[in-house]
């Protein structure tokens, strides 16, 4: 009982960054830009948010600073892949290494490393927070609750708004979108920046609300898991949310099992999230589901009137 309660209570700290980062990547990739730079953008968001938190101490502003920093860094990526049409895989990887170096450097020079900060207090959603077993799921910081409306907003935008339809058109068939008068370059630029802002928010969550400090390379590979989650979810936000929750549940369970003194082979336990990813990927491939969900023009630069 105790184990389940505290396990569920710790799930959001793992799941929310995955969910927000995956949502950001989906937004970018639905416009046809392959985004592999999430690991770097997480770090950019994390560092900027800690800096703002140390300077002003207003958590809302810190989260916005994380979003803004990641969006700003992504302009570099957008110029490379959309305007200069550099290979998107290489540009994405470069972005990761660039951000790792830059954030380590700035964090050290500005002496933001290891400075503990105050996060947000937990907010109990009464009466849900009094429920047995799952009560602690409803005793979280505000950002956890805000994740749901953010998902609704992005899904509504992509599925129900004209602008979202155009964005998806740009990602499926930019030639046709261009012929229909949609500004392809502008849409892709905006999608890269908006997606990066969400990834930056995920980074800010890790730094300001979860660990409450900055440590170089603290994203610890979570950006790569978000990239895998997007493929796993076949570019559908809701499936990405389910995937993020699944990962969050597994990762939160690992320390709980150890703390409860349950003797399992430890390296097997540490492997499970990745084994699950592999398993689901293979299942998706074999079952033939969702083969056509990938945005049609993903990873392809657009040049007007270029023959294919």
């Amino acid at each position, binding site marked *: 009982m*105790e*184990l389940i309660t*505290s396990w569920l*209570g*710790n799930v959001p*700290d*793992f799941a929310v960054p995955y969910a927000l980062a995956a949502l950001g990547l989906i937004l970018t990739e639905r416009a046809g830009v392959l985004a592999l730079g999430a690991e770097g953008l997480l770090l950019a968001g994390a560092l900027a948010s800690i800096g703002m938190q140390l300077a002003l101490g207003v958590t809302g502003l810190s989260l916005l600073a994380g979003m803004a920093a990641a969006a700003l860094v992504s302009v570099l990526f957008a110029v490379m892949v959309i305007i200069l049409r550099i290979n998107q895989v290489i540009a994405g990887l470069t972005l990761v290494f660039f951000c790792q170096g830059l954030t*380590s450097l700035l*964090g*050290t020079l500005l*002496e933001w*490393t*290891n400075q*503990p900060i105050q996060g947000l207090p937990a907010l109990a959603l009464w009466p849900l927070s009094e429920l047995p077993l799952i009560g602690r799921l409803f005793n979280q910081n505000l950002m956890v609750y805000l994740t749901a409306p953010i998902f609704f907003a992005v899904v509504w935008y992509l599925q129900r708004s004209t602008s979202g339809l155009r964005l998806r058109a740009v990602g499926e068939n930019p030639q046709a979108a261009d012929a229909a008068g949609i500004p392809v370059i502008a849409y892709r630029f905006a999608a890269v920046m908006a997606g990066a802002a969400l990834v930056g928010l995920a980074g800010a969550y*890790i730094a300001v609300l*979860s*660990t*409450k*400090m900055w*440590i*170089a*390379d*603290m994203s*610890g590979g*979570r950006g790569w898991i978000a990239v895998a989650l997007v493929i796993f979810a076949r570019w559908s936000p809701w499936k990405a949310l389910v995937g993020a929750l699944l990962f969050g549940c597994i*990762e*939160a369970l*690992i*320390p*709980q*099992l*150890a*703390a*409860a*003194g*349950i*003797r*399992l*082979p*430890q*390296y097997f*336990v*540490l492997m499970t999230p990745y084994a699950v990813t592999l398993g689901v990927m293979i299942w998706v491939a074999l079952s033939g589901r969702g083969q056509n969900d990938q945005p049609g023009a993903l990873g392809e630069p657009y040049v007007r009137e270029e023959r294919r």
Partner: protein
Amino acid sequence: MIDRWMHKAAGLVAGGLLLAAGLAQAEDGFTLKGEPKIAMLYFDAKNDGGWTQAFDEARIKIESELGQKIQFVEKVPESASAIKPAAERFIARGANIVIGTAFGYSDSFKELAEKYPDVAFLNGSGTTNGHNLESFYGRTYETHYLCGMAAGAASKSGKLGFVAANPFGVVNWTVNAFEMGAREMNPKATTTVIFTGAWNDPVKERAAAMALIDQGADVIGQHVDTPTPQIVAQERGVYGTGHHRDLSQFAPEATICSAIWTWERFLVPELKKIIAGNWKPAPYGAFMTISEGGGDIAFGKVGLSEEAKAKIMAARQAIIDGKHLYAGPLSDREGKERVPAGSSLSDAELWQMDWYVDGVITQK
């Protein structure tokens, strides 16, 4: 047949000659050519709050002791392609004493030491040694034993938690010593260990510390590189013991005791020996006790009575006076005898430690 014998005899004679030559070479120590010039390669940023910062703090003390500036470079990762250019640039600029700070520098330092026989190499937590190369590390089981005593004294529930990186010799001996120290103060104390699988992942360390506290642990020890477990302990209103440096800097209301590095106490005399000439590195590396300057403990401001502190300091004195903590009779938690009465673990057995004492709770 005789022919073969002749060959064998000749081989033996030649081997003996080589051996003699080797012994002669080993007997005259290493002497610097020219004025000493020291350079350091840091594994991480100099203000990382832990491992590297402890070296940087030692550097400042060494500079004032030896009266010379020490050049350094930060964030040299554990790969040959990064270590060699950094070291060779220092050597090209005239450095003739190079100090490394990572386990992963071991092989590169061995190659560098052979390539530059006129340069002295020292490497913290390394494993390679030679004519002009010495690895050094502290006996952290001593300091963590004392931290365990502090934890045992401060705990009300007798349930201690420990956040560690990976289960191998260096970490296992701290875990066992922590529990043995805790039992010294509270014979019923247990230590539940969570291995995060990473040295530097604050997200996993936080989750581990939270889980331990949820399960009733009221003192959290640690052998990871960030102060996260201490900060969580402070947030949750329990105590903790630190590693690398005095972590009460980050969690003044939680950290009762820290196992700290005192590299300058080893490096200053060792560097003086190198400068004096005829330096002979320890053949299997320097592995320092508290008295030789590897590590020590620092009390925080909370959690411990004067009586407990006096007991801990008495145990510290006993260690300085030569008490070996892994002295027999000692059995592991399955009841198998690991150290027979009257003997104690050798250094090689310490490095290979893959068992836990009674009271340590881990995954397999």
